[in-house]
């Protein structure tokens, strides 16, 4: 698999490590349902057949976490964007 790193260019997937679903948001620990929300956040994952947004870490490159869109059926990668949007401190 080849991942188009926005900083380093297209690189082999071996340079990256995988984390999983990038659409999840860490719940508010102060919320009333925090326990259930954290349970879902830590353990529950969808397994879509098709486009999947997921975290990849460019460990052997720029050390940036990337939001990669991959088709789980074909491994076709349609995009990779930095986790940190521009303008935020780096």
């Amino acid at each position, binding site marked *: *698999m080849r991942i188009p790193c926005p900083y380093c260019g297209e690189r*082999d997937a071996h340079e990256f490590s995988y984390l999983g679903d990038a659409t999840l948001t860490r719940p508010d620990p102060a919320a009333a349902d925090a326990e259930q929300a954290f349970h879902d956040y830590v353990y529950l994952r969808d397994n879509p057949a098709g486009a999947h947004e997921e975290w990849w870490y460019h460990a052997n490159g720029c050390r940036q976490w990337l939001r990669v869109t991959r088709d789980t059926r074909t491994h076709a990668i349609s995009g990779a964007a930095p986790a940190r949007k521009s303008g935020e401190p780096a």
Partner: protein
Amino acid sequence: MSATNRNRLSAGGLIDRNQTRGFSFDGTRHRGYAGDTLASALLANGVRLVGRSFKYHRPRGIFSAGAEEPNALVELRTGARREPNTRATVTELYDGLEATSQNRWPSLALDALSLNRFLAPFLGAGFYYKTFMWPAAFWEKVYEPIIRRAAGLGRAALEEDPDHYEKATAFCDVLVIGAGPAGLMAALTAARSGARVILADEDFLPGGGLNAEAGDVDRQPAPAFAAGIAAELASLPNVRVMTRTSVFGVYDGGTYGALERVSDHLAVPAPFQPRQRLWRIVARRAVLAAGATERPIVFGGNDRPGVMLAGAVGTYVQRHAVLPGRNIALFANNDGAWRDMLAAQAAGAHVETIVDVRAEVAPELIAAAQAKGIRVLKGAQVIATHGRTLRSLEVATASGTERIAADTLAVSGGWSPCVHLTCHHGGKPAWNEDIAAFVPGTCPPGLSVAGAAKGILGLGACLRDGAETGAESARALGFTVPAHEVPEVADAAFALTPFWHVEGSKGAAFVDLQNDVTAKDVGIAHKEGFRSVELLKRYTTLGMATDQGRTSNVTGLAIMASLTGASIPETGTTIFRPPYTPVSMGALAGHHRGKDFRPVRLTPTHEWARAQGAVFIETGAWLRAQYFPRAGEKDWLETVTREVTAVRASVGLIDVSTFGKIDLQGRDVGAFLDRVYINGFAALAVGKARYGVMLREDGLVMDDGTTARLSPEHYVMTTTTANAAKVFQHLEFCLQVLWPELDVALSSISEQWAQIAIAGPRARDVLARVADGDVSNAALPFMGAVEGTVMDGVKARLFRLSFSGELGFEIAVPARHGAALAQALMQAGETFGITPYGIEALGVMRIEKGHVSGSELSGQTTAGDLGFGRMASTKKDYIGRTMAARPGLADPDRPAFVGFRPVDLSRRLRAGAHFLNRGAAPETANDQGYMTSVAYSPHLGHWIGLGLITRGPERLGERVRAYDPVRGEEIEVEICAPGFIDPEGVRLRG
């Protein structure tokens, strides 16, 4: 040697008669020529029997002239380089080659196990599953060893492979797979557009089918035409021609796996050259021009040496100038095979008879054959063969059965395009009625197919299709393709009548020669319900092993289709997966074997430690000093005890550079640390360090370490050695994904700083002689952290930390000064008898002190389990806090961290022993926890342990059993507080 090359034509072929190549087969010496394969050289020397079959030990000969070979598998080379199951048909002949036949005992000609042939009625499909059922215990001890002795093929070398293997990566615009007519033209048109082209071909000579072609192309002999194009390609700077290279797999993102046989054609690789090289080729587009494989017709006795694919006969005659036999017959269902025979006849072979299953054959072919004196039998079938190696055939014609003399039977049932690579992404091939074969269906992205691989069977059409596909691929990438001319070759029509199996023929009729699967076995599979092709394959082993059914798959499923009444496309094929051809384990491993399995990281003081006589041990990726034995010490325990005693009595030093070291800078570091550690860091003062524990988001402990604040916006963190990379990645995730608003920048400085710990009552005295500034208790109190210099001006960071329970310091200097620092400390400590110690002594002292380490940070323990419950802040959120409160993790019955001592102090403790209450049966239900770490304590003079036991801290003084069924030991232990030395911490604050 008078008979040497007796089957060689006096002229022609792509061999160099001036370069002889001596070789041996089963100890007999022969000679061939440069340009030969082992198979062509054996045939040239009249060797027709080359092996015994897998199951029935039937005599087998050479069946093909390429990678599809099912029969002619030999052991190549000897000793450590011995390589089993090597296909003679793709083995390039070299001087001194030694080959041995396989699977025969005592000799190839007289094989005792060929008795299996007479057992054939009992050895059919599913035989193993049905016969060796009872008694069950016999399988492993009796049946399997006997079967393994009787069946199976070559023997692997039992010594370490003396050669080395490489891995490499290449990039190109267009990868062309196969250098036959289509591949050469595709590469040429793409290359002329300026695209970067890689042309890979498994043969040592580019040209593919052109090298076995008798006619002219572009007003020159076909092989010369191929050589001309190959030479032009090789001269272009944007082209890399890779011969002896098999592309074996299509992976994601335009990545292709290829194996280059760099030195397989040499007795021994040249100095510094690998035996093979595994390529990862990243191509924007690819053209598959892998050609097609001829398939046989199944009939009784079709495995007899002398039965050979018709195209292979053509290849041996045209390319190698070898006559596979003196008297050739053809059995076919298509026109192409006729033309191969006519060309072979013209080149000097003697073709006596053509047997064709078709009642009608083009009159001009019949006329051409008869003009050359070839007898033609139409509407006829071969029903049996005779001879030790082939002597005669039985042919059934409309008028009866007749016996025909022949020492070689060329067989052709048509051609199957090599669609394998097109299926590697799950694409299914489609059935083409015209050629009665599977052709490519949906291809992997970026892969186009050209020529015979696409089902185009005709030289002129292949040349045109190759040029067009190459041009399309280049254009798709934005290259401008200059006008190109394709040589005209008039293609005769390809006529074929599908025919697979001679029903009612005599003797065993083999579908899969390599696995000894007969047409009858397919029938058994059908009868017993294993009708899906995937089940057929597994039940009969049809299509397995080195040839992966290259010549048998389609025939096998055609026979199954006729039994079920379904069509061939309805029956479908099994799934083709990588690799297309066998890839050696050596190539897949590359340099990563033995000591080079993975790189070892050395500490900055490695050479210094070696000079001190250290024994090293791998810990994670690092090689660290385990202990420093001295002359006269009888075992490691004596050495470690001396090192610990020296530290506790005076002073010692150890390299702790392997800890993960992370530099944190920014306005929000304090807030950030508060969110990743369970304890508070926001209030950490400049010049101070604090111990911290991190959880994973699921509430379990991830790591521990210290973080020091060097200046208001500058912190340094240490992690455990094992988790250095993981923690860094985690912190980056927290910063970049969870809290991008925080102003914090991280940098790994593990490699940049050497860090040495000194510990013991004399540690400050030693440090004072090395540090340039004040290191008194006032200037550097317990948990103090300051920047300064040592050794007259070397930048340093001084931390007053202790892992051993003694007065301790850690001194960090830029890595290049690490060894000098060790030497300076040794010199400074000489008067105190400073002692270098290794990680064994480090471990003993941390157990004596009751610190947790890797054995306790197991990924299954909570902060509460490890006694850090009260450290956890209740005033802030941090990673893992919410989940750590789950009932299961907060359960007071969980095993918790305490110390253990044997009741009988002379007994040794064992890590891994499980705790049982007194009187409880050793059952899982009664498990109270387990011993995580043990050590012999020089301080106390007996063994001590740390471990996790249910409600441990409430049970101090209680006696339980440490049960160790693995070692067969059980001893009584007493639960105690996990601090065996200086529990009040007087020493480290001194």
